[in-house]
């Protein structure tokens, strides 16, 4: 027999919040408890039990239970094209301006992602759903097209990274790409958000493989410290290449899929307004780990700059091969493995963000807690998108290098419209209640939008009228 309860009966013991979604639930309509509700409730039960206890160990356990979406989104964004961008940055410019610049981009990512934490915890809904409901299908579809096009192109580059990383070990492209698809499918078979999240978190930590690689190159820490303080040097000044790398590095940290993924993951995990503080810690910790991995990649390839090796058209695996004489076979192997990991984890998180968004917009069940039968559409979108991207990588003669370069640039260009939706939602008192952005958060968010639009315009100028760069001291 199906057990049903009225919403008002279910309200017992729940902390009331003041927003439009929370107020609507008092309609007294009968509700049906789903499989997804039960799984989420069990996860929340553990959180409540742990929260009720005092002491250091329960706090640590609570932290363990609540972290996830923030670390996943930040390390997920340290993906194939991102690591390639950092590697290209190190090889082209050495240790200098881009060291503090990369730190700045991750600070920008923190500002943006913190807003999705609040939005997800306050509304329990995904980003795509809120955009469609609040702004209507006209603007909603624009936002979805931006997301889907960007996600598909990015997924293609993830499989390029997987192929290139495993190619270093002599694995044939078809085997590496199909193997990655298989691993992605296995992770989904858990049908539990919690288990899926732990598996991917474990895999994401391998992003830090770039740290030992960087240490093997024996970086000059004094130079790194000097660069952090002085924002220099910038060899070659501001050229078209510099602007392209600048944009690629921004696109390596702040992209639309991150907004959709983290908010949906927070809703799927079941985080509430009580968990926002931990959500913020999760995001900052993820950003810190991702910054370390990004800087390590840059430091790892900086010797190529010092040895005047041209890395202009390097693909991921070629960086590993070029580094081999400097850091040995094991160091190069770690670099290649890191590239593979970056592509693999991002392939999982990005395809999941597409599936969440599709489910939210098509009003189909969308959760990693769903058994396959109940979440068929969700899982199929995820797998079909990944399979299509993987298949594209295997077509001979596809200009893969162009796609890789394009992806981060397009991400930066698509970010200002995506941020406007986020900014308006997070300042919408009707859905956020008292959790709307404080003034300082709005100032920081507008600062990020300004930087992104400025970088996009600079890129436009560098392409259409490269000579105009001289006006701002470039060449």
């Amino acid at each position, binding site marked *: *027999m*199906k*057990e049903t309860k009225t*919403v008002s009966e*279910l309200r*017992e*013991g*729940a902390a009331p919040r003041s927003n*439009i*979604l*929370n107020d*609507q*639930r008092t*309609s007294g*309509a009968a*509700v*049906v*408890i*789903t*499989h*997804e*509700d*039960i799984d*989420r*409730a*069990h996860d*929340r*039960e553990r959180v*409540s039990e742990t929260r009720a206890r005092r002491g250091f160990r329960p706090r640590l356990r609570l932290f363990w239970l609540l972290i996830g979406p923030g670390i996943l989104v930040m390390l997920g964004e340290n993906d194939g094209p991102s690591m390639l961008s950092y590697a290209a940055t190190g090889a082209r410019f050495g240790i200098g301006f881009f060291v503090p610049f990369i730190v700045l981009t991750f600070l920008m990512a923190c500002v943006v992602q913190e807003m999705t934490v609040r939005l997800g915890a306050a*509304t*329990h*809904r995904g980003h795509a759903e809120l955009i469609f*409901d*609040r*702004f*209507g299908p006209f*603007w909603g579809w*624009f936002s979805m097209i931006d997301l889907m096009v960007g996600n598909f192109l990015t997924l293609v580059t993830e499989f390029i990274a997987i192929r290139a990383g495993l190619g270093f070990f002599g694995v044939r492209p078809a085997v590496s790409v199909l193997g990655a698809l298989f691993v992605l499918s296995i992770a989904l078979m858990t049908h539990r958000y919690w288990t899926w999240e732990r598996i991917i978190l474990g895999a994401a930590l391998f992003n830090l493989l770039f740290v030992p690689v960087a240490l093997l190159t024996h970086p000059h820490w004094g130079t790194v410290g000097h660069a952090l303080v002085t924002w220099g040097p910038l060899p070659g000044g501001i050229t078209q290449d510099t602007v392209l790398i600048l944009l690629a590095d921004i696109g390596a940290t702040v992209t639309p899929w991150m907004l959709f993924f983290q908010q949906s993951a927070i809703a799927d995990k*079941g985080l*509430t307004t009580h968990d926002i503080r931990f959500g913020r810690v999760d995001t900052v910790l993820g950003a810190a780990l991702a910054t370390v991995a990004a800087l390590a990649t840059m430091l790892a390839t900086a010797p190529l700059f010092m040895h005047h090796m041209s890395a202009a058209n390097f693909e991921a695996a070629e960086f590993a091969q070029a580094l081999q004489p400097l850091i040995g076979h094991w160091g190069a192997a770690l670099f290649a493995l890191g590239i593979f990991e970056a592509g693999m984890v991002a392939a999982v998180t990005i395809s999941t963000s597409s599936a969440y968004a599709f489910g939210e917009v098509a*009003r189909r*069940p969308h959760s990693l807690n769903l058994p396959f*039968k*109940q979440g068929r559409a969700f899982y199929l979108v995820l797998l079909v998108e990944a399979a299509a991207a993987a298949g594209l990588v295997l077509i001979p003669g596809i200009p893969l290098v*162009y796609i890789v370069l*394009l992806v981060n640039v*397009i991400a930066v*260009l*698509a970010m*200002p*419209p995506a941020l*406007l939706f986020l900014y*308006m939602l997070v300042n919408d008192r*009707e*859905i956020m209640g008292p959790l709307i952005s404080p003034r300082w958060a709005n100032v920081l968010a507008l600062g990020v939008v300004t930087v992104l639009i400025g970088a*996009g315009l600079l*890129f*436009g100028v560098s*392409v*259409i009228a490269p000579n105009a760069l001289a006006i701002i001291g470039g060449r």
Partner: protein
Amino acid sequence: MEKQFESATAAELSREDFTSVMTSLEPDQLISTKEHHHCPRRRLTRTEMILFWGLRIYLVFMVGVVVYQIWTSVR
């Protein structure tokens, strides 16, 4: 409205599960509640419409720039 979610079957829904759902989830976390209640659409102000269109035009223009760059690179 067509029902898009599938409820747990009676065999799956134990009393413990039921209690857990009632005590651990906030009411608007329930899937059926989410299905029935959506955020109402908001009216965009003139300034907001200008911003939306402005950024849309910016994006279309910049994608054109990217296509131009690819075209010149290929040539």
